[in-house]
């Protein structure tokens, strides 16, 4: 019975060229526009909320701890030194370089700063080797890298002015001769003042204001020479720019893909109301087809169409924009996510169709819901430029969970994870979307009673 229903749907779709174009071509056009715009987007510090940054202090010097404190004092940054305590590990050890890298790679945090051993030694020694810190960044978030880089320079300037002064005077003595006792006394007095001022609470606030100002000034030359920032992509590729660009493309493939999936499914589900209007539904229910079979047939067909639609989108992204789809981990994750996402979207659309009393109602309800969920869930505007509360709101949307799953597949790979482990890491998203599908179908089945015997 279901086979016959699937056959009817397939022939209907095959012969409806407008429906085919809306389902498969329009999403590609939108995706291509977004990919072209954002794929080549440069970094800009504007619009960032507070960002949680991992700090790893391998130097353990007074200077390194002052730098980290100064960064923590910035309004835009919240420093964490160790993972969140959990039931399994109530007192986790502080991050080391490796665990910080993993945390960024898996998407737990966007950025990590690693202060290497010997940083304090070389800090403030003008003319010698420039001290460097490592900035481990997530290439999917092009804003964070540049913003944090600027804030490091600003913080370094204000973190230990006494050390900087000491280093500067040392250079002066080396190349310009020693200070007189009076000059030495004045310098020591000023150093003591700077050290004291630096420890006072006001100093942090001052640094914060200055740092915030510096955040928008990407790679300011004055700061650029003070601390060298070695930016390291947390992802595999050596070419961070390519990584970033490809990540944005996979973001939009997922974002636009999910949004259009919902629109296509809503359009497809309208056939239920069309069948009601034409009398075909009445005739179907007078035949050997029960309501459960009818809904199941629709759901299976829509799910398959949705899966094919997402596949076309990602294959297009791969062929035209270099999206990294054809690796075993990515492909397996993509298939798992797309199957469940398409199934949940199909169930959502069928639920809306059973809720609506006419096609006009369905169009209105679905358009509003899909646009709102897409905006909140990150299909239109990248989630990483949204403030925290918006990211939390996204978890109440279909798009939010679907996008989270795709992000895990294409960006936040766990290094060295087996194929199975990669798939297991998708369990929360797969479970929530699967649960949504079950709930939507149950509601649809209940609402569809109005079409059954009265």
């Amino acid at each position: 019975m279901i086979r016959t229903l699937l056959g009817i749907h397939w022939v209907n779709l095959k012969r409806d060229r407008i429906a085919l174009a809306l389902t498969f071509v329009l999403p590609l056009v939108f995706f291509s526009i977004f990919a072209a715009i954002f794929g080549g987007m440069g970094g800009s510090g504007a619009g960032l909320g507070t960002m949680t940054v991992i700090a790893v202090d391998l130097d353990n010097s007074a200077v390194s701890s002052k730098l980290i404190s100064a960064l923590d004092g910035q309004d835009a940054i919240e420093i964490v030194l160790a993972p969140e305590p959990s039931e399994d590990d109530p007192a986790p050890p502080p991050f080391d370089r490796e665990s910080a890298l993993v945390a960024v790679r898996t998407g737990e945090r966007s950025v990590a700063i690693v202060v290497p051993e010997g940083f304090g030694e070389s800090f403030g020694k003008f003319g010698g080797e420039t001290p460097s810190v490592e900035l481990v960044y997530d290439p999917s978030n092009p804003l964070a890298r540049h913003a944090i880089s600027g804030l490091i320079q600003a913080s370094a300037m204000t973190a230990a002015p006494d050390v900087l002064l000491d280093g500067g005077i040392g250079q002066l003595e080396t190349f310009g001769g020693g200070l007189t006792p009076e000059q030495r006394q004045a310098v020591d007095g000023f150093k003591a003042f700077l050290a004291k001022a630096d420890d006072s609470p006001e100093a942090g606030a001052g640094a914060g204001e200055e740092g915030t100002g510096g955040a928008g000034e990407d790679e300011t030359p004055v700061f650029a020479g003070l601390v060298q920032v070695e930016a390291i992509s947390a992802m595999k590729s050596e070419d961070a720019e390519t990584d970033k660009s490809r990540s944005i493309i996979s973001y939009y493939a997922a974002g636009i893909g999910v949004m259009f999936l919902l629109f296509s499914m809503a359009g497809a589900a309208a056939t239920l109301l069309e069948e009601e209007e034409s009398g075909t539904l009445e005739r179907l229910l007078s035949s050997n087809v029960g309501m459960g079979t009818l809904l199941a047939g629709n759901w299976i067909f829509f799910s398959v169409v949705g899966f094919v639609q997402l596949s076309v989108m990602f294959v297009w992204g791969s062929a035209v924009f270099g999206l990294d789809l054809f690796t075993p981990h990515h492909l397996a994750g993509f298939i798992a996510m797309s199957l469940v996402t398409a199934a949940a979207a199909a169930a959502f659309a069928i639920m809306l169709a059973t809720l609506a009393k006419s096609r006009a109602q369905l169009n209105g309800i679905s358009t509003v819901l899909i646009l709102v969920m897409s905006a909140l869930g990150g299909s239109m505007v990248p989630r990483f430029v949204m403030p925290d509360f918006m990211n939390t709101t996204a978890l109440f949307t279909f798009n939010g969970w679907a996008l989270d799953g795709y992000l895990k597949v294409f960006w936040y790979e766990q290094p060295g994870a087996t194929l199975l482990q990669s798939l297991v890491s998708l369990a929360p998203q797969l479970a929530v979307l699967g649960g949504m599908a079950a709930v939507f179908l149950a509601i649809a089945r209940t609402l569809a009673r109005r079409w059954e015997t009265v």
Partner: protein
Amino acid sequence: MTRVLSVSGARKSFGDTQALDGAELELHRGEWLALLGPNGAGKTTLVRALAGRVQLDAGELRLLGHRLDGGLGDAEVRSRLGIVPQEIALYPLLTATENLRAWGSLHGVPGSELGERVSWALEWIGLEDRAKEPVKQFSGGMKRRLNIGCGVLHRPEVVLLDEPTVGVDPQSRERIWEMLEQIRREGASLLLTTHQLDEAQQICDRIVIIDHGRAVASGTFDELLSQTLGSRRRVTFSLADEPPGGLSPERWTTADHGSLTCSVADLASELPARLAELSAAGAKVTDLQIEAPSLQAVFIHLTGRELRE
């Protein structure tokens, strides 16, 4: 005669509207029964109840000896029922063959028989040469024929047809009646609702007139006639000149173009007397027409309404 379908004491209300109010009818094997009634009389509700789409509040439905009570056995016995809806309930993008295959399959025709049944149906509905065209390209009459074909592909013993000829031209209507007559000869029993009173009168064996959810009369046309208008005939006299004065208005009615009409209970004895009366009054009769009461007259007599109301 074997009774294949019966409805007794059927009641159904939708909110404050009493759609069925004790409706009764019977259909016998090989019979062709017309269900007539004004719009809103309860015809479609009754057909939907028989199809299992409406649950009665009270009353009994029997199909092929089985009492339809909403139990598991209903589906089995309903698979021997064919339903042709009033709407063109077809898939417009599918071809005639694809529609027939789909609906045949959905009505449980086994795959091995489907090809043979589709060929039979295409020939029966006269669409063999258009079999591979999408239905949306068909004329209204062709769609109607296909609509019927899809409802009887599984060889049902009882066929319910809701307005099978609505909106089609006279030629197509004629073709549809021929098709239905053919399956009736092959043993099917037909229950149809229609607005074509003249055709129902000519074609159907029996007629049930339903109004306000109740069967107000049933039987053959002659039986209905004797129950209502009796054997009176309407006689129209065409005159060479204007009707003469002095005729009793209780016995004569002036009709169009100066003709006179009257109602006659016994033609043999009354007609000569009427002619003599006109002649005596100075009227010259040029022609006369004798009309038996039509089903429409019976219908209006019973329901007080035109069928199209």
